[in-house]
């Protein structure tokens, strides 16, 4: 009886089961679903924008990104736009990550992007996506190779290389080592200058070849050094670019150069302070620390400390505050819908495909032991505490 009762009930339930199970299976089959979400929202070219995205490249190529640029940019943007919401991301040296971060910012409604590109070519995708939403992109410190880039704020990077090279040109003679003065135990130096003194060798360790700035630094350096090379006053013994500005790679490159030249290196053109740290480590291992002219860039605490220690000779101070201020001024004008010509003064930088990008190029400053106090310390870019650890009091009038 129960069975028959159940059977009668099944006659009503089964059709429902058919439909439900069919729907379930069909839904399982479809295998995809669309998720809700808002599509790109067109903005007014940044005018009235109250959400700004900051995308910085890494934490390894230079500490400046996190210790300087990040807080400075936040500060100037807050000053430029009242009640602004800021999204901040660091791509950790991964261009794909940076693109994803930019996409997230755009999806969240950020209407102005400030991007220090991890890869100047790959970041063009960020510009393309931002353009779809009429979001202006400001390339910060590193040019993005896109015709559609809105603005570029940086330092005059050719000038940076020139400052580094000019320092070398002005001081390399002091690092010429004669056999008598050579206490490395290596023996007679190779090469001969015009006056019979050995021609100093330089190793040039440039930045990442995927970073257009690195090429510009190198271009600026060569503009100054090439005449010395042509005149055999200085010999370009080793030159290379360093993927990702990697410190360990730079050290390995310096070690290779030293080995190749049997430690006969008098000058180390190093594109930034981070890599200079690696090069100094290689020089220390060869017993050449303090005996080789070493350049750098970014005026990092480690770089200034190395200068005070006599291990590094100079760095290029690009006041992040100045670069950030320029960026803040641009953002303010964009926010207010004002012309930016008064800020760029008609200056442009060209991209590979002929794009002419309105640019603010701030002037870098060469820093050595003689002007640390009047530049980075005076600007409170760094403090004595940052740079004087382990340094004898009174050194260079700084510590």
């Amino acid at each position, binding site marked *: 009886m129960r069975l028959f009762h159940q059977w009668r009930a099944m006659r009503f339930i089964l059709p429902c089961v058919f439909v439900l199970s069919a729907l379930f299976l*069909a839904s399982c089959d479809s295998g*995809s679903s669309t998720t809700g979400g808002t599509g790109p929202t067109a903005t007014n070219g940044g005018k009235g924008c109250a959400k700004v995205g900051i995308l910085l490249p890494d934490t390894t190529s230079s500490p400046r990104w996190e210790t300087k640029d990040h807080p400075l940019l936040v500060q100037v943007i807050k000053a430029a736009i009242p009640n602004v919401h800021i999204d901040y991301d660091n791509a950790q040296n991964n261009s794909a990550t940076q693109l994803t971060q930019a996409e997230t910012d755009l999806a969240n409604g950020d209407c102005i992007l400030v991007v220090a590109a991890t890869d*100047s070519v790959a970041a063009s*995708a960020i510009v393309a996506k931002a353009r779809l939403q009429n979001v202006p992109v400001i390339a910060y410190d590193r040019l993005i190779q896109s015709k559609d880039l809105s603005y570029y704020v940086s330092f005059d990077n050719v000038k940076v290389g020139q400052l580094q090279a000019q320092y070398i040109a002005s001081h390399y003679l002091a690092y010429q080592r004669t056999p008598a003065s050579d206490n490395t135990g290596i023996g007679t130096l190779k090469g001969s200058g015009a006056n019979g003194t050995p021609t100093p060798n330089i190793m040039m360790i440039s930045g990442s070849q995927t970073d257009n700035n690195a*090429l510009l630094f190198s271009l600026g350096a060569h503009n100054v050094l090439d005449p010395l*090379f*042509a005149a055999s006053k200085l010999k370009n013994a080793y030159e290379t670019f360093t993927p990702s500005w990697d410190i360990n790679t730079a050290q390995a490159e310096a070690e290779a150069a030293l080995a190749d030249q049997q430690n006969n290196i008098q000058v180390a053109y190093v594109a930034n302070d981070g890599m200079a740290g690696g090069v100094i480590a290689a020089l220390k291992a060869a017993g050449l620390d303090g005996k080789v002219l070493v350049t750098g860039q970014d005026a990092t605490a480690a770089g200034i400390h190395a200068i005070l220690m006599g291990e590094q000779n100079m760095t290029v101070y690009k006041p992040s505050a100045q670069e950030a201020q320029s960026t803040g001024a641009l953002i303010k004008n964009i926010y207010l819908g004002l012309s930016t010509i008064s800020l760029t003064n008609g200056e442009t930088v060209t991209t590979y495909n002929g794009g002419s990008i309105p640019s603010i190029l701030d002037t870098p400053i060469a820093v050595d032991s003689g002007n640390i106090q009047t530049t980075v310390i005076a600007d409170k870019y760094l403090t004595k505490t940052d740079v004087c650890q382990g340094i004898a009091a009174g050194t260079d009038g700084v510590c």
Partner: protein
Amino acid sequence: MSSALEPFMRSRRKTSLTVRISALLIAAVVLPLLITIIGSELILRPTLTSQATAEMQDDARTHAGDIDSLLIARLQDLSALSQFYAIQQFLGGNSLYEQQAKAELALGYHLDPNYSAWTLFDPKGTLLLSYLTNPSARGKYQVAPEILAQLQNSNKTVISDVYFDGNTHMAFIDIYTSIASSKGTVVGIGRSTLLLNSIWTAVNNETNAATGSYAMVIDGHGVRIAYTNTDTTLTTEPAALFKAIAPLAPEFRQQITDENLYGNSQVPVTTMADPALVHPQQAAFQFTPAQEGQTFQAVEIHCNVVPWTYIVLRPVSTITGAANQQDIYLLVIAAIVTALAAAVGLTIGRRTTRPILRSVALLTASSESLKKLSAREQARAKEQKWIVESAQTGLHSVQYYAKAGGIAARKLEEIGQDIARNWERFDDNTRRQRLHEITTAARYIEKASSHEEHSSKGLSTAIQVTNQVAEQLVAGAISASDAATQLEEVIAQLRQVVGE
């Protein structure tokens, strides 16, 4: 029951309950699977195609983007290096800078492992300096005339068509830039020669995306400049490589010959027509490529830096393979569950119908006994009718003879009174005649009495038979009652089956 439902009910009666339960269970499990298969055809296949297309678009977009990135970076290299002081001085005629200029060419050469040479030319295209070795001519020229013409303007960059070295099995392009002095005068031409190995590797690796998938790159002239190579040793080239997708214009054919584009001097460029690739209406489309025997889903993405098109192809059969596989699985599952459902339905049906069949048997027996009882009752009723008719006839006879006796008795009385009144007047003949009449009446009365007795006997017999029939009818009623009791039992059993 309405007459409209009768044919349906009749047909249902022809199908056993067991079969109907099995059929319903089979339907319960098979119908969703069938719906799923239909859904697969209507939803899954288009979805799979759409997903594969999206995946292929991502793939093609990534690779086209990689090509753009690669070329932009290499343009950037050339652009920056060409501004180096030593290079500009050397091209300006200062031979003191030759060594450093060469060192800077070497620096450029090492920026990418796919550079095969960096070269400097004068504005007329005469080779001046090169690193690593002096490059071979491009057909009849060091620098093709149409490229040379473009480089007469400062800040101009040009990317050449594709060349192929049959000895090294490597394709390459030349990237040119005009080099100007600080005064803006073009003092020379810089050229980097870039092997397309990384692009070919990406194209070759397309086979990893899905079974049967491959890729190609078509240049702006419609020539396949990269094509997935199934020869893993890479010692032979794919048949379609450096074949045009449509006949080439005579002028360009001449240019190919003059500049030895695509390795034409070793393997002449021919046409392997693929009309679908010439002007596809959409970025994603289906077609049967030349040399292929099946339909492919194709996605093409145009590069931005060069007029190249990256095309990813995947067999439609591979894309819908999951749906086909699923259909097979579903059919197998359908077959298995059909068998299981049939078995379960059979079991349930049998367990359900067994008490019903038992009840039907009891009902059949009860029906038979009722039929027999009915026949007997019918016979007895006929007998009783006959007896009643006989009794009626007998009664009529008795009434007739009683009436006749009464008439005869009244006749005797009339005759007796007539004789008493007229005794003296009657003569002997009359008296004798009257006496004869009395005798005749008496005889008539006797005869009527005899007949009446006979009829009474018949009535008695009828009453006796009626009693017997009544007894039999009582027995029949008892039998009917028994049959009714049996039917009540059957009903009770059926209720056990179907419930209250």
